[in-house]
């Protein structure tokens, strides 16, 4: 029997769909029966009483989620959604994210990194659940809370830590910092400081994927882009504009909302007229799904379907992951506004603890194996700190190097030569 490690607050049962309760065209929508309790339940409603489904008639693809789950149930062992290897992989990734962020906090208070540092503690299930399903050529776009997205995507912990310390060995040569993690090799397209400004970039990456397939005739190009952003961003114009364009052109993108209920000190409920973000998907013609973001297996199931949709060319999906950040908005945030009871409730749903419990209870892994993983991660993080500590700081010559891809863009100086040919340019002391 599936043991769902969901919370006391939320039901794992999908809300029963009565076809007659929706519009008359909905006869094609089929949902899992209310009695089966399966992990990866996608129907989660915070409004209790209303029996309305909030998907439009066009989002028939939600069918597939339940179908996939049903298929999975028949194929593998009756209750398990993951194999042992997958389970250990997920566990390791989440522990890496947690340990890394905890180390960041330590380093910050020791004065090794500065500025605005936004930590991801508590939200690991979303990053791991989604990004572990991607291939290397798929793209990820994030926000300023991007360390763990970078790690999940495969950027080495050393490169991320060096970047945070502002060293040349950082993934962006020390020029980006905490909020601008980029990796060409792993197709991490950022790291953006302003909320919402990454979503059009993600839409552009998805556009390139479609363009490659249809114009450049690279028939096997099925790259998918994931755009991660928060609840505060969902009130921003760029969010809506990109939902429109992605649905219009059926771009291979998944919009992942990490709804942690707080935008610095602004509660989502105080900022949003209709706090159900997933509802905004069907308004633009794409499915909108709400999932428990503290449960990595549920997130993974939804992610599989959404990413599969995009890969098959069926268009975008909006996934709202209900999650929570255990720390403040950034290391400078005193975090006084959030109710300690709310924090305690979510702390009880810690995704790492939950996965650990699941793995052990389902005999997928032993305590010892998990401890080994934790030790290994501790070493990885320590090594990353050491590496970052020992790495050199950028020299002055690095100042002007990456302003332009083609440094002729600095123009022609009074002596008739291009400024970039001036020897002072490579020293970083040229006047440009």
């Amino acid at each position, binding site marked *: 029997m599936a043991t769902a490690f969901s919370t006391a607050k939320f039901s794992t049962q999908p809300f029963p769909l009565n076809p007659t309760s929706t519009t008359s065209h909905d006869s094609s929508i089929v949902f899992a029966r209310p009695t089966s309790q399966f992990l990866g339940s996608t129907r989660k409603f915070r409004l209790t009483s209303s029996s309305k489904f909030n998907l439009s008639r066009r989002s028939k693809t939600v069918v597939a989620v339940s179908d996939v789950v049903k298929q999975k149930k028949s194929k593998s062992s009756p209750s398990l959604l993951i194999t042992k290897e997958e389970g250990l992989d997920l566990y390791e990734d989440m522990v890496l994210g947690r340990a890394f962020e905890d180390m960041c906090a330590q380093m910050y208070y020791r004065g090794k990194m500065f500025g605005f540092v936004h930590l991801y503690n508590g939200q690991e299930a979303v990053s791991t659940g989604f990004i572990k399903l991607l291939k290397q050529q798929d793209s990820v776009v994030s926000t300023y809370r991007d360390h763990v997205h970078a790690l999940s995507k495969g950027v080495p912990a050393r490169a991320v830590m060096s970047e945070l310390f502002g060293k040349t060995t*950082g993934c962006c040569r020390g020029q980006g910092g905490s909020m601008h993690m980029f990796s060409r090799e792993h197709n991490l397209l950022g790291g953006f400081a302003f909320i919402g400004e990454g979503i059009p970039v993600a839409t552009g990456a998805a556009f390139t994927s479609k*363009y490659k397939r249809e114009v450049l005739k690279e028939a096997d190009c099925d790259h998918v882009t994931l755009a991660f952003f928060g609840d505060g961003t969902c009130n921003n114009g760029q969010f809506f504009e990109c939902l429109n364009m992605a649905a219009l052109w059926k771009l291979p993108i998944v919009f992942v909302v990490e709804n942690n209920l707080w935008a610095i000190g602004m509660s989502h409920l105080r900022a949003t007229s209709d706090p159900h973000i997933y509802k905004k998907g069907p308004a633009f013609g794409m499915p909108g799904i709400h999932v428990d973001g503290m449960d990595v297996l549920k997130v993974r199931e939804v992610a599989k379907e959404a990413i599969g949709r995009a890969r098959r060319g069926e268009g975008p999906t909006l996934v709202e992951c209900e999650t929570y950040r255990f720390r403040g908005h950034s290391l400078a945030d005193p975090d006084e506004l959030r109710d300690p009871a709310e924090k305690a409730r979510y702390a009880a749903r810690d995704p790492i603890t939950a996965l650990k419990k699941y793995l052990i209870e389902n005999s997928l892994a032993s305590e010892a194996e998990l401890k080994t993983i934790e030790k290994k991660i501790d070493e990885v993080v320590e090594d990353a700190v050491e590496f970052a500590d020992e790495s050199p700081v950028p020299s002055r010559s690095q100042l002007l190097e990456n302003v332009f891809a083609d440094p002729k863009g600095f123009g022609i100086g009074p*002596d008739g030569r291009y400024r970039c040919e001036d020897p002072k340019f490579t020293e970083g002391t040229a006047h440009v």
Partner: protein
Amino acid sequence: MVLVLRNYKLRNSRLVPSPFPTTLTGCSKPQILRPFSFQLSPMAAIFQGVGAAAALPSSPSYSFDSNKSVFSPRRSFSVRKGASFAVVRSDGTVNLNPKDRRAQLLISNAVATKADSAAASSSSKPGHELLLFEALLEGLEEEMERDPHVCVMGEDVGHYGGSYKVTKGLAKKFGDLRVLDTPIAENSFTGMGIGAAMTGLRPVVEGMNMGFLLLAFNQISNNCGMLHYTSGGQFTIPIVIRGPGGVGRQLGAEHSQRLESYFQSIPGIQMVACSTPYNAKGLMKAAIRSENPVILFEHVLLYNLKERIPDEDYICNLEEAEMVRPGEHVTILTYSRMRYHVMQAAKTLVNKGYDPEVIDIRSLKPFDLFTIGNSVKKTHRVLIVEECMRTGGIGASLTAAITENFNDYLDAPIMCLSSQDVPTPYAGTLEEVTVVQPAQIVTAVEQLCQ
């Protein structure tokens, strides 16, 4: 330079070319159907503003192109066909193919040293005549043929052909995905262009009017300008952002903005302004081929300028200025539409015995300090004529740059003529006095040369 007049109707604040031709002296057939139609002719404005007292160009040949086909047939050219592209410097010398003197001769003619050489060049020389918007279209089309990664995005660029017809016919030829009609979401589709550029495409994003790109400022400043740097050089953004700006014919304050002054501080971008069909095509091609993000400023009133341009492939260097008229007494630095006001004033000045050197700076960021500097060292007097506002415009930056670098060579303080710091009024009489007129330029030169 030959000018073409068109009758335009305003519909929903977009310009639609009317099929009816008009003459300079007024409409022989009263085909002005709507109260908003107007003539798009900088020369006409000059005549109305300054009066016919100004010397007319010696060969005013105005032709009416309402039904002219966009692409005239290419004639065979005596220089070897299939010549690889040559980088043309503003002084007419060609960097590649040094043996090709024929090409040099033709190309230096195409960059008009005197405005009334247009008649001479259009007689029986090879090359083909076209209008500025057609030159842009030609450049864009050639680049799209050359590289399948080049694509266009913008409002009404596809089926509509562009509100100024710069993308006419491209959607039919290249398809709806390559010439993408976007919804009205500047910030997002500009960001989309940036994301596409980061992942391998070379988009050309059109702002229907440059002013609309104010909505895209977030993406242009943060992502377009900075992503190459903040990613440590990992991602290049070979995007071209283009569109018409400047003060038109009573378009109202919001459609008459000069965004070059707002964008100039953004690190990591290049800005160029085209002013003739020759440099429009050349700059368009150079911008598309450049690995840097480039903003190409066109002007609403210059789209119908006609010129004969070479048949063979050429580009104009993005960082160089263009010598329009060599001279001895004073350096006049200008760009875009003001070039024509300056040339109009130059005729008056020549009659009065002055010899102005006119340079079209073309590259608004970075400035070509070599061409400018050489000129300052020769004439020792500088007048900047621009359409930006007085405060914080390109002229302000240029004044600072010249003072910093060439202060010792100046015999007089730099004069800068800019538009008034006023939202462009709708009324024609008021609009005329917000921008610099040739008479002011003449007065300024006289003052400078005292």
